[in-house]
């Protein structure tokens, strides 16, 4: 057992490839825990950011600045009574959220946090991700059907129609990105001397292709990459029923859409699935267009000095967060009612500061000492950090959309999906192919 554990440490291949089930299991557990923590953090961030958009404070009472609010919510949802409607279809009602969750979490087996930091590197990575994310529709449709009442059924039909139609546009955009992995073009764009290597569907392969070509696909074949990225960015918002496309849970018409009849833990499973799907879909976007775990400007500002500077970023971010927490503790009113909260926030600041220092130490250690272990640790730290920061940017976008946009009406939503997004994504696909071969 132990040597299986240690033997893998040296290899720079994903556990799946190295056929090491133990490490694959460990990775799966890490990802499960990581995504759940991310969902909790996302829940808090969404409420706080939305509040500050809307000139209010957001949760302040549970824990310092509402930090314990997500935990309080989770406990509340666990304790809440789990009602199953009278003539509901028990079995389907029970399995629907599980399918939603299954679809949301299996996507993470292929998400490349780093060259070797992924559960397994399937050579059909992106295809697998799209396939599994299309399973989520089944969960929603079944939830709507099992609740056995008008509103959830209409909500379910609407959201599944929406997801199916935006999946098409999403697929086209993804294909145009995959095309870029192999086609380098010869004339105007074809700067690199790489031969027309065979493209790849595997996520890690795609990022490595971007590394080799020293360009993010966002900027490759200039306008095309950008257009495909924009199409994907809009489609992914519609895919997860968020912000301007959150019609199925439009409070004002259909009460709460397909999960009206759910309550308690079952309802929280749906919420978990929604947030997990959001993170999964933005990780696809990051991998395909924003160069996955690559640090920004790897080739313009190349060289070990720049590498070192960029490797300080993780530490500095955590120290920045710690500074914000410290400022929060200092500004906490002196009344002894707030004493517990100040202590709590102070401890949280310490933890953040500790992590920051640790990451700084790793970065400096990798620079100074030449021991291979620390260098690998620094590398994986950087990779994971840059990947997470890019996903964080997408998460913030999701919240920003929710604060500013009103909601699309259902027919407009479908019109945009079929009459605007699909033609453009088809066009981008065709032009990318042509440009790749000729230009």
């Amino acid at each position: 057992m132990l040597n299986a554990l240690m033997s893998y440490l040296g290899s720079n291949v994903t556990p799946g490839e190295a056929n090491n089930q133990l490490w694959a299991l460990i990775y799966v557990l890490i990802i499960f825990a990581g995504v759940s923590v991310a969902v909790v953090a996302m829940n808090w961030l969404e409420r706080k950011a939305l509040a500050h958009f809307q000139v209010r404070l957001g949760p302040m009472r549970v824990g310092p600045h509402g930090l314990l609010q997500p935990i309080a919510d989770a406990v509340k949802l666990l304790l809440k009574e789990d009602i199953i409607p009278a003539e509901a279809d028990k079995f389907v009602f029970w399995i629907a959220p599980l399918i939603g969750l299954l679809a949301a979490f299996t996507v993470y087996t292929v998400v490349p946090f780093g060259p070797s930091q992924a559960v397994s590197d399937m050579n059909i990575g992106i295809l697998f991700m799209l396939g599994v994310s299309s399973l989520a529709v089944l969960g929603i449709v079944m939830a709507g059907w099992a609740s056995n009442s008008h509103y959830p059924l209409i909500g379910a039909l609407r959201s599944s129609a929406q997801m199916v139609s935006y999946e098409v546009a999403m697929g086209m955009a993804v294909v145009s990105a995959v095309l870029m992995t192999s086609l380098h073009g010869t004339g105007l764009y074809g700067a690199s001397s790489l031969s027309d290597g065979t493209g790849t569907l595997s996520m890690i392969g795609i990022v490595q292709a971007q590394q080799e070509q020293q360009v993010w696909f966002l900027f490759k074949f200039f306008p095309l990459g950008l257009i495909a990225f924009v199409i994907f960015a809009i489609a992914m918002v519609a895919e997860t029923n968020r912000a301007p496309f959150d019609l199925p849970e439009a409070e004002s018409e259909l009460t709460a859409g397909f999960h009206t009849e759910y309550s308690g833990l079952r309802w929280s499973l749906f919420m978990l699935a929604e947030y997990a799907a959001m993170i999964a879909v933005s990780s696809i976007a990051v991998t395909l267009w924003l160069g996955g775990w690559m640090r920004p400007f790897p080739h313009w500002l190349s060289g070990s000095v720049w590498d070192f500077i960029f490797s300080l970023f993780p530490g500095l971010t955590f120290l920045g967060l710690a500074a914000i927490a410290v400022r929060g503790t200092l500004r906490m009113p002196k009344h002894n009612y707030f004493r517990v909260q100040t202590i709590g926030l102070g401890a949280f600041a310490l933890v953040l500061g500790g992590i920051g220092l640790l990451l700084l130490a790793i970065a400096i250690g990798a620079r100074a000492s030449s021991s291979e272990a620390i260098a690998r640790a620094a590398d994986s730290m950087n990779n994971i950090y840059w990947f997470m920061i890019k996903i964080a940017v997408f998460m913030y976008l999701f919240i920003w959309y929710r604060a500013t946009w009103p909601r699309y009406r259902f027919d407009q939503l479908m019109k945009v999906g079929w009459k605007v997004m699909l033609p453009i994504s088809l066009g981008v696909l065709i032009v990318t192919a042509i440009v790749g071969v000729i230009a």
Partner: protein
Amino acid sequence: MNPAMTPVATPFFFYLLSGLAILGGLLVITRRNAVHSALALIVTLLAVAGLYLMLYAPFVAGVQIIVYAGGIMVLFLFVIMLVNLERTIRERQFNRIWPVGLVAGCALLALFLGVYAKGKSLFPEQARGLAEGNNTQQIGEMLYGNYMFAFEIASLLLLVAILGAVIMAKKRI
């Protein structure tokens, strides 16, 4: 065979997946509730996708999941929900022709037994090359290489089908 392709505890997974597939198939025909049978069908399809993976055809497995589980089954569920089931149940069931069904079933069974008895000799030798590494590429080359013409005709056929559906739906709106 490069190490990456050493099968992963195949016998256990094989029996598990095929068992699931058979169980799902049985459930499809025995369940009274249409949605339950649709669910069972999804389980079967996913089990078959698992089998493809074990045959080192990940691309086919991926397509199986997308096309069947993600696409067609959603259609099935849509139809089951939108079509008013109470009325269909009241309509006349024409299952008095079960003897014909039985005969067809036995013929199929005989075919399977025949194949099982003959064993490997039925299949041409070279088909068994394992295509793990570049399964996607191989399919791509074949599909767009020497079977290009057939592929185009199939897509034309699909186009006709879609147009037919739209016209039928259009008439009513």
